[in-house]
């Protein structure tokens, strides 16, 4: 297999502001503004640092090759954790909360590919003083391949 060198990149902040959920007008079918993250050691190593996750296939392309992948692969729990960030930015960290995130892997997040996560509202219910918004969620790469699928719930006070 020919090894393709993918240089690590400088990742500047964009200052982008995520449009917030309006719990009064949210409806089934609404789409969560996407979250985008480059598949790069700069991010993966930060996650390795806070989560103590230093498996070789996350840190070294040659280990990824040995295990049958094109290059190093991103951490599944990081993709799952970023689904929380996706939802928190939408619901508003100071207002709402993430109640549930389920995720199944379909393809690995290969180094050099960008992760794009989003979700769509599937149901809304009120319970114990909170409005629960159920969603299907997903993560794709920048080739349009689906990496993860799942379901989630966020809650905001009524």
């Amino acid at each position, binding site marked *: 297999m020919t090894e393709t060198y993918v240089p690590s990149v400088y990742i500047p902040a964009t200052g982008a502001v995520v449009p917030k959920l309006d719990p009064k007008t949210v409806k089934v079918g609404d789409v969560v503004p996407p979250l985008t993250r480059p598949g790069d050691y700069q*991010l993966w190593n930060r996650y390795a*640092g806070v989560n103590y996750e230093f498996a070789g296939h996350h840190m070294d392309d040659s280990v990824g090759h040995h295990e049958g992948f094109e290059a190093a692969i991103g951490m599944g729990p990081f993709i799952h954790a970023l689904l*929380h960030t996706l939802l*928190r930015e939408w619901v508003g960290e100071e207002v709402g909360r993430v109640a549930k*995130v389920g995720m199944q*892997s379909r393809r690995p997040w290969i180094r050099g590919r960008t992760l794009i996560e989003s979700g769509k509202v599937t149901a809304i219910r009120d319970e114990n003083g909170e409005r629960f918004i159920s969603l299907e969620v997903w993560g794709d790469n920048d080739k349009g391949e689906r990496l993860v699928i799942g379901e989630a719930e966020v809650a905001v006070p009524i």
Partner: protein
Amino acid sequence: MSQETLISPEMAAAVGREYEWSTSYPIDPVSIRNWAITMYFPEKPPRMYWDEAYAKTTRWGGLVAPEEFNPFAWMRADPPGNMGPEASRPWPEINLGIPCPEFKANIFAGLVVTHTGVRMRPGDVIKSAVNLAGYHEKQGRLGLMLFTTREDRWTNQKGELVRVSRSDLIRYL
């Protein structure tokens, strides 16, 4: 020749057993801040994760950790010196005292986490109790794959349930 199953009778009999118990060190605001920086990078994380005075003005009444925060990373208070799955490996057979199947590699397959709404805060001590929820197998691109499901229940020092997670790990030959 393809192998028919990786699930031994000992493994099948162990399903449902609790096998790992851990207690975190008290949660530190630095860990919350670093976690939030990681989750929002390259943007700056929300102020409520790094400015305690500001956090007091929010709905949460003080610093809280992002829901997915892991208070067990790096080292656990109990068992003393335990460094978690990275050191002990994430598959359960070792802790259950049964033979571990032969495999080439392991990858994360899926995770469902339910957050009860009890937030993790600085000073909280979290207890984890893990049980083996099940095994199943599937043929995949990489050959016979063994799925192992573990359930992990976290409670805080007040005995409040913080979260329940069920995770699947795939091992393959």
